């Protein structure tokens, strides 16, 4: 088991290395660097000036060397400005003496670099944003998983029944509606004082002006309430819920057809006992993997939902970093994404072993 985990961590490190290199390669393509030079410096720069700007700001060397600097295995660049005589370097704070600065400052040293748009260290940005997204994901999971399992189990208990058809229709509809559609529909229906449900409620006197829910989750960054967080959470949860429910239903239906369930029924065991005591554990093995695999999908979802609802977490930061060509912030976001995906995969593999004794690791 320990060997398995070690091997998976090794694979994870290798994958992270490859993926960040791909992102690094793409963000450092010549046109992207030229765009960066022109936005940070001056748009009228000639090609020669672009090259000299890139060189002066540490984007000049070979790609692999710069990737090494970012990783922290190659010493950070250091050069004296020919005009002002000031030392500039990757590891140098402004005005710092080069003799005092660290030689290496990359990912391995815990230095994520500098965000050009926000004019601050990436590490000081990304922690708070991840925390915000963590809160959003927690609530999305807290809503999504129990309700999806409930719907799936209810639907799978008696395949083909009226309950099954109704719940299946609902799950298919919810999983077929992407977040950017359901989010907008939610806002229109529940978070507008002009149309949808809120004006009706005000008219009936059940609501004192304003809207039922909030169409902007910015205030949730300061404190989560039922009213400001329901819509973003529901938008994410609904999409994943239909999918997990469908998987649970299929798994449940299969288990309910198994020989041992038939035997139990012939013995006269109560239907509720069959479901609770015999079927459920076996039926939940497949959904567990699916739930774990929902994490990467959820990262997709938060990008859309955070932008739509103005909730400034990880997804919003990723969009801003990409649209503003903020290379080091984007790389840090990729690292985090890779980490989340691979860790959840690992958890899913390990959890699977505990749930299903037939699977042996190593």
């Amino acid at each position, binding site marked *: 088991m320990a060997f398995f985990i070690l091997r998976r961590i090794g694979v994870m490190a290798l994958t992270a290395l490859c993926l960040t290199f791909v992102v690094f390669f793409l963000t450092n393509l010549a046109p992207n660097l030229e765009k960066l030079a022109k*936005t*940070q410096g001056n748009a*009228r720069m000639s090609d020669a000036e672009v090259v000299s700007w890139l060189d002066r700001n540490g984007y000049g060397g070979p790609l692999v060397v710069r990737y090494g600097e970012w990783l922290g295995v190659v010493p950070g660049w250091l050069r004296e400005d020919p005009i002002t005589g000031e030392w500039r370097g990757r590891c140098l704070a402004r005005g710092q003496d080069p003799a005092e600065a660290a030689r290496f400052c990359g990912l391995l040293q815990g230095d994520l670099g500098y965000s050009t*748009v*926000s004019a601050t260290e990436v590490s000081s940005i990304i922690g708070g944003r991840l925390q915000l997204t963590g809160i959003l994901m927690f609530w999305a999971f807290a809503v999504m998983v129990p309700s999806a399992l409930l719907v799936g189990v209810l639907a799978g208990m008696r395949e083909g029944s009226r309950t099954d058809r109704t719940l299946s229709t609902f799950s298919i509809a919810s999983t077929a509606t992407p977040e950017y559609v359901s989010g907008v529909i939610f806002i229109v229906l529940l978070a*507008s004082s002009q149309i949808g449900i809120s004006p009706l409620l005000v008219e009936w006197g059940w609501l004192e002006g304003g809207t039922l829910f909030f169409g*902007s989750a910015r205030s949730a960054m300061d404190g989560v309430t039922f009213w400001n967080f329901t819509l973003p959470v529901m938008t994410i949860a609904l999409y994943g819920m239909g999918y997990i429910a469908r998987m649970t239903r299929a798994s449940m239906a299969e288990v309910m057809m198994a020989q041992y369930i038939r035997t139990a029924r012939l013995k006269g065991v109560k239907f509720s006992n069959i479901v609770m005591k015999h079927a459920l554990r076996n039926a939940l093995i497949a959904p567990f993997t699916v739930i774990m695999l929902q994490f990467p999908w959820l990262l997709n979802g938060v990008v859309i939902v955070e932008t739509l609802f103005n909730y400034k977490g990880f997804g919003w930061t990723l969009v*801003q970093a990409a649209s503003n*060509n903020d290379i080091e912030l984007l790389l840090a976001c990729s690292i985090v994404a890779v980490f989340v995906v691979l860790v959840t995969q690992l958890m899913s593999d390990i959890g699977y072993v505990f749930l299903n004794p037939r699977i042996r690791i190593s």
Partner: protein
Amino acid sequence: MTTTTTAHLATHPAAEMYAREYKTGQLSRREFLVRSTALGLSAAAAYSLIGLSPAMAQRATPAKGGTLRIQMGILALKDPRTYDWSEMGNVSRGLVEYLIEYNRDGTFSGVLLEGWEANADATQYTLRLRPGVTWNNGDAFTAADVAANFAAWCDTTVEGNSMAARMGGLVDADTGQARAGGIVVVDDLTVQINLPAPDITLVPGMADYPAAIMHRDLIGTNPLDHGVGTGAYRFTDYQVGISARLERNPDHSYWGDAYLDEVVFVDLGTDPAAWFAGAEAGEFDMTYQTVGEFVDLFSAVGWDRSDVTTGATVVVRPNQLNAPYDNVEVRRAILEAVDLSVVLELGMNGQGTVGENHHVCPIHPEYAELPPMVVDKAAAQARLAAAGHADANFTLVSLDDGLTRFTCDAVAAQMRDAGMTVTREVLPGSTFWNDWLNYPFSATEWNHRELGVQILNLAYRSGVAWNETAFANAEFDSLLDQANGIQDANARREVMARLQRIMQEEAVTIVPYWRSLFRHYRPGVVNADMHPKFEINIHHLGLSA
């Protein structure tokens, strides 16, 4: 805020001349107030010269305490004299204050100055500092601070220092620094500014948002880095693109009145639909500005509306350093193809008046009426073909927001109607703003300025920091110098007519409309009225008792 009227001049020879002009109908009331208060008269004295009781908007006194949240973009702060967006001034105004403040009704009043006077030909200004003002680090605010700031404003070697253009003749063209003897410290509370030629724009220049007064030892720094200022507030949090938080500084005794305990600036992006969703969700109490169709929507949900007519606009300008815009015929063809009334209608719901492709607005005192420009799409295409650019592809860059995006879309559509090939490029906020001066063909929002010559000095004189059109014309520059020295509105108008005509003939830029500006706030917010220059002074703001 306590405004001491006794420290102002009771009258001034030039102001009396303006009063005569006002009475004969040669000056508008706004223009009269702008010019006479710029000479050092108090608003009350100015009103009395023209026989009116001071009907100026007296600020209400709000209750003490409370928190106010304002929707506004949060950009990375920097050295104030290099500020290029009024949002930067607004967010730091609670900490670093200004000498003079421009009011909604067109008057100027002192903030860190108690009063100021100009001599008869406006070549010498005497600035009298407000006594008893201290920095929040305990130092006294003295004439040395003011002199150091003036010297810093005149430093043309600082990249992006737009104050140098506002200081005009005070800058020595040879050294690129303040003129010797230009800034004289008379005593601890008096500074004298000596100009080589009459300049009527010095006072408006001191009231503009890059003119924040920094501590004499901290010039050239970002106020966020040290938090030293004269204002009543201090930063507790600042996150670019997200929010900025200021609280009343308990360790500092502020010279005036400040009402709110806490002010939070909230950045909801550049999409006005997101602002509206935020308003409905109770995310903030006041907008920085409200644009387009959202003006009616905010009113419909019960927010109070405040509007002001201004010389603010969006210029859709080619940059003459980039081909094919270096060819005047190409620029003329573009101007000829665009019907400005359509741009007004589509770009901003008709909330303004039609422009004339020169940057002097009818509400400016020296505005001269010119014959209307002809729109002829067929002639435009013929002109373009004659210039040899019939198949040119014009890429029009704009910010991803409501106003400039729709305006550019309308301009692009008009150009396509005339048979031109136009590509639209829409950039996100931070990227666009990093480089607004240099795009070959793009749109820029310009704020209102008090006098017509001011914008010409800032943006169209050869080689100045904000010359985004790269327009360089010796005749234009010398006429502008001439106009800067003419105090009489009618005499100046003759020169202005020629300046305006040069802008049209050289097809410098499209100036499609003059905007009315709107702001909305929740009922109960006090002194939040829209300002012609988007200014928000958090010291004045408050909540009703």
